[in-house]
């Protein structure tokens, strides 16, 4: 497939472009103030760069030296691309003049406007932006703790977990069963589990054709469901079985030693088991008092400022963004809107009402892409779908249409990676 792209070439041209763009993008009115951004993923790195281009002093706190992107990591699981094509660093972001602190932020004190880092030092801010992504809730599904993730990987944070699940799939005999446990809403990347099942089915079909997939789901419906199910019938007939919540799909307990999954109706075992467990906003959002009892962060839809903590903004997966799904596309769009709002607030101006777009592509096969899109604006205090816009790809479309969307899917990933890290 055409997924391979040369990251070095991409980053090289992108770095030159970014430097030129940074010079010419200075705006007339520059705000002043100190902004600290926690998390250098799709949301945080985007926001930090936009803030810097608006003339603000920006510090970005990121715990990991290498960022492994989740979008397209399902293609890594299917053996369609190497994990290296998912990996990025913050060198270009740093070159733009953003101070990078390679540490974990452990606490935020909104009263003192201070973030405390793991080495005990702290950073003062005028405005704080949190984009910590998700934490896996290792307390939510009995039997599924960190040790269990070593046997039944979640692979819902890309990196080691992705490699582990890939190895298990490679080691599995032809004729084996892959079982996936899919979570209830809300969770990171709503179509992600079904894209994953599709691409693993593609791997089985081409390498281990007697194998089967079973999805045990805690939901009765899922994103792009009609499109996925029609494609499964067409491309992988008889291979994928989806068990919905009301047919007994909800897993209530797991046993990592025997790779057993317990539902109210029975027990299942698999040769390879992928548990996508419940999630919540990253720990720093909880420690900073920005998360509510759901584990996610309520925000003002115009500024992304926390409803719970003044001068703290939350973007990306950690936020409760109304109709916007937890996607990299959303996090990137929110990062830009949040940066504009923070700059306005620091200038003492009223932030403008935003509008945001999301488009999530999924690959059902290397040359078969589908998408869901939406346009959002604040209504009654929540980000709401603009009526008449958005929706999924058509249910019936010629192969050329699906192939075109697969091309656009990859083009999107290259473009966003360049905007955020190039």
């Amino acid at each position, binding site marked *: 497939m055409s997924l391979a792209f040369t990251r070095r070439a991409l980053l090289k041209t992108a770095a030159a472009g970014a430097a030129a763009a940074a010079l010419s993008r200075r705006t007339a009115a520059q705000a002043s103030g100190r902004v600290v951004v926690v998390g250098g993923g799709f949301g945080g790195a985007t926001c930090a760069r936009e803030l810097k281009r608006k003339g603000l002093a920006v510090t970005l706190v990121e715990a990991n030296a290498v960022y492994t992107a989740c979008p397209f990591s399902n293609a890594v699981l299917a053996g369609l691309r190497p994990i290296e094509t998912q990996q990025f660093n913050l060198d270009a972001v740093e070159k733009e003049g953003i101070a990078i602190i390679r540490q974990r932020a452990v606490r935020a004190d909104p009263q003192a406007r201070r973030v405390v880092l793991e080495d005990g030092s702290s950073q003062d801010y005028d405005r704080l932006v949190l984009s910590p992504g998700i934490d896996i809730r290792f307390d939510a599904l009995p039997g599924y703790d960190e040790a269990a993730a070593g046997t039944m990987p979640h692979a819902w944070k890309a990196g080691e977990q992705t490699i582990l699940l890939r190895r298990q799939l490679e080691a599995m005999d032809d004729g084996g069963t892959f079982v996936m446990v899919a979570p209830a809403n809300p969770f990171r990347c709503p179509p992600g589990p079904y894209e994953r099942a599709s691409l693993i089915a593609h791997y089985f079909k081409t390498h281990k054709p007697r194998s089967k997939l079973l999805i045990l789901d805690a939901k009765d419906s899922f994103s792009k469901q009609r499109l996925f199910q029609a494609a499964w019938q067409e491309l992988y007939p008889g291979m994928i079985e989806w068990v919905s919540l009301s047919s007994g799909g909800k897993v209530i307990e797991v046993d990592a030693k025997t790779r057993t999954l317990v539902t109210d109706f029975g027990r299942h075992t698999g040769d390879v088991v992928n548990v996508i467990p419940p999630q919540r906003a990253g720990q720093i959002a909880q420690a900073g008092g920005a998360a509510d009892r759901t584990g996610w962060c309520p925000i003002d839809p115009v500024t992304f400022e926390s409803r719970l903590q003044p001068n703290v903004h939350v973007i990306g997966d950690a936020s409760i963004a109304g109709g916007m799904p937890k996607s990299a596309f959303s996090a990137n769009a929110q990062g830009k809107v949040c940066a504009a709002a923070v700059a306005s607030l620091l200038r003492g101006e009223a932030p403008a009402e935003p*509008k945001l777009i999301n488009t999530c592509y999924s690959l059902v096969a290397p040359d078969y892409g589908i998408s869901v899109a939406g346009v959002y604006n604040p209504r009654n205090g929540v980000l709401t779908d603009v009526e008449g816009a*958005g929706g999924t790809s058509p249910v019936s479309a010629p192969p050329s*249409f699906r192939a075109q969307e697969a091309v*656009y899917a990859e083009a999107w990933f290259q473009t966003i990676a360049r905007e955020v890290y190039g």
Partner: protein
Amino acid sequence: MARLASVLTMGGMMSVAVVVMVKTMPAAAQGVAPPGATSCSGCHGPGVSDAAVPPLHGRPSEEIVAAMQEYRNGRRPATVMDRVAKGFTDEETRAIASWLSQQP
């Protein structure tokens, strides 16, 4: 300002767009993106001319407005842009197009 002035001379539609921009934005912040505009670069990244998805930065404003109108009314074949275009009014589209046309 130089760019705004040259757009103004294109007359008709475009002067309407520019008037809208000037009215809805503080004078000092004409570089400020109108609602929706910053989302576009998620797919339409600047600077790669042979990309599968065309860049929009620096593209003539009237071209973008026309394309969006055709996506909205179904006259231009689309995979996703028909669904996105329907989320914006003519006025919003003109403001976005004008801003995009001025981006490096």
